């Protein structure tokens, strides 16, 4: 299922970039300050721009399978190199953010469900709604201002050690925390209303055992889906967060290359992001089958 999707997506991406107005020869020459019509023609021939579209696509796929995604229009560095340098940074950021989101989100969601309609629960619901309404780039800037400018506790941007990871990870974690808390809470509430919980309680089991062994195990199932989806979304570039914090990841590479019209790099970034996204979704689907025994026995 993954391979056909990937192929179709690659076609879609290829066509999308082929449609972008602008002559690559011009962009290359402008970036390297040579200019002549003969050079332009030579560049176009080299890039295969005079070939029909389906031939270009075939070449594109063939090259891609062999690890050749073209070269940057501006620096002539192979695209694959730039991407492989940037991508691990995004992974690092995404994992850090996800760790925070899960470690904070799930417990909070559980507590909110258990103490339903209490003050704590209402505060949590407010935070959840706030969390999905906040523009992530604004939050990043505010955090930078408070922690880096005012207090000088943390650096403002870049990547040079774990203190640089803190603010971007917290910023990126905000939306996932909100969705995880909401999902955990709703799922717990749903599960806690079921008969088997009442049975467990009437058996005289300690409340904590009821909660963890019976309720949580069932409630956690949809939460795993959410975690997986959010992971995919975050790996999908964390574009805005990386831009705000000048984090050298693939999202930032995508934006900067697009703004410079360096399309091979941009195309490579999109390809990478979409591939990873599809891959993560696939893993989530597989995981879901394992985690929810009801599906296995259907």
């Amino acid at each position, binding site marked *: 299922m993954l391979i056909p999707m990937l192929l179709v997506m690659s076609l879609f991406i290829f066509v999308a970039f082929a449609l972008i107005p602008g002559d690559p020869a011009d962009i290359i020459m402008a970036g390297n300050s040579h200019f002549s019509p003969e050079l332009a023609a030579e560049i176009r021939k080299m890039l295969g721009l005079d070939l029909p579209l389906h031939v270009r696509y075939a070449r594109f796929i063939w090259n891609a399978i062999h690890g050749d995604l073209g070269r940057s229009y501006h620096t002539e560095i192979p695209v694959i190199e730039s991407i492989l340098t940037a991508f691990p940074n995004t992974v690092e950021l995404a994992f850090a953010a996800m760790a925070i989101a899960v470690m904070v989100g799930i417990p909070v969601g559980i507590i909110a469900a258990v103490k339903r309609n209490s003050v704590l629960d209402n505060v949590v619901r407010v935070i959840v709604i706030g969390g999905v309404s906040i*523009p992530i780039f604004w939050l990043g*800037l505010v955090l930078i201002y408070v922690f880096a*400018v005012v207090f000088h506790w943390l650096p403002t941007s870049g990547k040079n050690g774990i203190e640089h990871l803190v603010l971007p990870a917290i910023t990126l974690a905000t939306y996932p925390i909100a969705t995880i808390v909401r999902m955990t809470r709703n799922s717990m509430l749903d599960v806690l209303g079921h008969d088997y919980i009442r049975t467990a309680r009437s058996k005289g089991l300690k409340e904590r055992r009821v909660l963890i062994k019976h309720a949580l195990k069932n409630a956690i199932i949809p939460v795993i889906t959410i975690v997986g989806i959010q992971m995919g979304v975050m790996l999908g570039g964390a574009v805005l967060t990386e831009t705000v914090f000048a984090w050298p990841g693939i999202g930032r590479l995508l934006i900067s290359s697009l703004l410079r019209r360096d399309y091979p790099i941009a195309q490579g970034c999109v390809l990478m992001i979409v591939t990873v*996204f599809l891959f993560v*979704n696939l893993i989530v689907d597989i995981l879901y089958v394992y985690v929810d025994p009801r599906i296995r026995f259907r």
Partner: protein
Amino acid sequence: MEGGMREKIRKIAETHRDELGDFKRDRTAMLGLIILVAFVFVGVLAPFLAPYDPLTQRLPAARMTPNSEFLLGTDELGRDMLSRTIYGTRTSLQIGVMATAIAMIFGVLIGSISGYYGGLLDFIAMRVIDLLLSVPSLLLAILVVSILGASTHNVVIAVGIRGIGPFARVVRGSMLSIKKEYYIKSARALGASDLRIIFRHILPNSLSPIITLATLSMGSAILSAAGLSFVGLGVQPPTPEWGLMLSSGREFLLAAPHMVIFPGLAIILSVLGFNLLGDGLRDALDPRLKGII
């Protein structure tokens, strides 16, 4: 004709009377509604509410912190922040409404046809929607804007396209479940055409999820548009747009944080309004949607 419309609306409101009652009692949802009404008010009356023209530059007065003359300070070109924030309401609301309208119209169309007719049409349509949804939403918008060029107009298109998926899925789901109902079968037996069945019988009953989704989509549309503008791939200067203002303010974060704080608050409040309203609508109209929308 007038009387007919009024009758229809009265009837729909009557059927949903219980839910509307639930909604009115939900205080956070009412808060959301109030916030939104306030924003619409500001947006519509912008020329009367804004103290200055949002485009006038006063370079000597650049980056002033809030004072008596410029209540929210000025930006890097000396333009009044308050006026720009007020006019930004217009930009954001317009983008939000139009993008959601595009998403809704196409999504409902695709979803209804796909769900009602089923078969190969359904299969192909759903694969296309899957494709649309297999790209992270911001990325899709970025791609569309790259092809079409960065402008307010194209931001609407990009954000609109991004929003089609959820509508299509929701409407299709509605179609699939309702078309099995007996009253549909009887309508068909009476000789009603397919189009008539879709529009007069099925869609009015799927109104709840559509309305809820539309409200929530408007909030996320505003966020996406602001995000696109922030990275330079959206609304272009000098149009006052909150994301764009944040982007300019970023350079001067140290010296002039007010340039960043106020547009951001505007974004938060407006999106919050849509989200509160949307959640309230969903809880009132169909709590079963909690896991889906």
